């Protein structure tokens, strides 16, 4: 048993608990501690990735109870990739929060690390009920983060977010309960094997449970028509929190991918491919509605939030195309789109604080202080968000389009993807020209010094540099995502690794 599998869980949990115990410590020391803990988690995530990069599937039986009787943690390429993406994004979100958000209310750093604990747990667990528990951990931390800083509009959006997710959790439990009632197991690898031997009279129940599970995960990843909670929530959360939340919908995408490739994958006999016919229509609908919502938005943050919905649609399309090439493209697109959305949320905040009452409304207003720097960053962020060359988003979308050629529904996929891309470009070009070019010449009084500007824009620049690095390392990273997709296409290895762990 390799303890590196549980280390990415223990690190954020102990950091969160430690920060709670040391809550009376000077804020600066707590900040140092928080960033150091995050860097340590990043190191552990890199170590875990190095362990699984050769295709090994590591398992960790909690309490040494063998699977399927005990809960197992499983680390494969997909889990490591998701973990690494999350932590890289979280680092810059945390750096952005250090500018004062963490002092706006209590326990920001505690909640932040518990959120990372929930995210890491969701990616690493091999048990469906444990996945529910980690969903709840990350959700309750996200409620706290979402409401952090207070304000009537935020509380109102937060209440809806909480109620929607509580209803979703109830559905999740019903799906989990039904699957347990049919198969008598909750270990995902064992579920796949047990579903293959479902008696004919229980097939309908198992199907209903599987589709209910899809509905729950679709709610979490804001797939249409269950996406309406997202724009209001993300547009009302403070910018660093919204930046971190850019990864939250990807947990839903990850869960759908895991359910589709493993639980209802090739090993589950009569139920294999249960989710497949639903994914592509859902994906294209999400992409279309997200893009149209962004076009209709009158505020920059709302537009970015709708683009987060659209990016979940693109990722679901990559899963729905059901070919390793498409999936590899999607997995390469995932960190790119999360980082770009995070940069856009931070940038929208930087724009909003410089425009007085106009805030981030997409109306021409007075010229902003430091307009050139903001404009340059907006240009790069828009390139990344729209998936234009030369950044990684273009490579990923090109790979996805090439994988879609020859698919029976290729006309629909190519049509919607390209149309959504074009509308994204139009939207971002219009926003940029409204915010930066059509501003009047008399400038607002400079409110902040140059040093403050540097601290404000460096997390955004860092995120963009990371996207450039993603682009530069495209050959190596796409090789890795292709290997990940190949591993997911053959779940037999995963099932074997999990269920034989107890014998060794």
């Amino acid at each position: 048993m390799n303890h590196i599998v549980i280390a990415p869980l223990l690190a954020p949990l102990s950091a969160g608990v430690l920060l709670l115990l040391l809550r009376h410590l000077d804020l600066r020391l707590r900040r140092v501690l928080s960033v150091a803990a995050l860097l340590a988690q990043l190191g552990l995530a890199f170590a875990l990735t190095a362990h699984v990069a050769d295709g090994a599937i590591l398992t960790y039986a909690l309490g040494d109870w063998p699977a399927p009787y005990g809960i197992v943690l499983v680390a494969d390429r997909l889990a490591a990739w998701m973990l690494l993406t999350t932590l890289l994004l979280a680092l810059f979100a945390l750096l952005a929060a250090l500018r004062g958000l963490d002092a706006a209310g209590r326990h920001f750093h505690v909640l932040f690390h518990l959120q990372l604990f929930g995210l890491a747990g969701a990616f690493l667990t091999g048990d469906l009920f444990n996945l529910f528990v980690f969903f709840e951990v990350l959700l309750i931390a996200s409620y706290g983060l979402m409401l952090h800083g207070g304000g009537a509009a935020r509380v109102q959006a937060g209440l809806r977010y909480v109620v929607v997710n509580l209803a979703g959790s109830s559905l999740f439990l019903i799906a989990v309960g039904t699957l347990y009632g049919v198969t008598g197991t909750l270990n995902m690898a064992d579920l796949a094997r047990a579903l293959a031997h479902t008696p004919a009279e229980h097939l309908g129940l198992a199907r209903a449970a599987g589709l209910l599970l899809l509905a729950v995960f679709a709610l979490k990843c804001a797939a249409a028509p269950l996406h309406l909670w997202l724009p209001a929530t993300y547009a009302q959360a403070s910018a660093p929190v919204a930046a971190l939340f850019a990864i939250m919908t990807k947990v839903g995408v990850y869960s759908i991918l895991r359910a589709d490739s493993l639980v209802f994958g090739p090993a589950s006999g009569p139920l294999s491919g249960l989710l497949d016919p639903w994914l592509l229509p859902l994906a294209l609908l999400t992409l279309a509605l997200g893009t149209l919502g962004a076009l209709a938005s009158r505020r920059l943050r709302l537009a970015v939030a709708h683009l987060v919905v659209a990016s979940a649609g693109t990722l679901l399309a990559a899963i729905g195309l059901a070919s390793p090439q498409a999936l590899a493209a999607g997995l390469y697109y995932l960190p790119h789109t999360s980082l770009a959305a995070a940069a856009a949320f931070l940038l929208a905040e930087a724009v909003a604080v410089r425009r007085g009452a106009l805030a981030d409304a997409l109306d021409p207003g007075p010229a902003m202080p430091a307009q050139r720097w903001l404009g340059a960053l907006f240009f790069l962020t828009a390139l990344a968000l729209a998936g234009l060359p030369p950044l990684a988003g273009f490579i990923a979308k090109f790979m996805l389009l090439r994988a879609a050629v020859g698919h029976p529904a290729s006309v629909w996929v190519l049509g919607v993807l390209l149309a959504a891309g074009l509308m994204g470009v139009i939207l971002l070009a219009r926003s940029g020209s409204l915010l930066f070019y059509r501003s009047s010449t008399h400038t607002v009084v400079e409110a902040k010094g140059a040093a403050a500007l540097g601290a404000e824009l460096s997390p955004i620049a860092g995120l963009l540099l990371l996207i450039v690095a993603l682009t530069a390392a495209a050959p190596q990273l796409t090789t890795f995502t292709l290997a990940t997709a190949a591993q997911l296409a053959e779940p037999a290895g995963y099932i074997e690794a999990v269920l034989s762990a107890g014998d060794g």
Partner: protein
Amino acid sequence: MEALVAMVIGVLTAGGVYLVLRARTFPVVLGLTLLSYAVNLFLFAMGRLVIGAPPVVAETAHAYTDPLPQALVLTAIVIGFGMTAFVIMLALKAYAELGDDHVDGERRP
């Protein structure tokens, strides 16, 4: 007994869904509570309904009840309890800040 339990779960769920769709926060919170009761009963019943049988190994026992759903229900109850407490606090805060308990936060005539 199965029919009775099924009906109880059904009625609780129906009531919960109806209340969640109401426009004010208090019925919504009550609805979420009813839903979580229904879900807990449902999870419990997924281990099959057995009367008078122990969940752990005993020398005199002839039949057993499934202990796993009981553990799952316990976890679900704890989580549901915490979430309900949180959502009640949040609803109170929303009422205090918005001056209205409408879920859209808009004062209706």
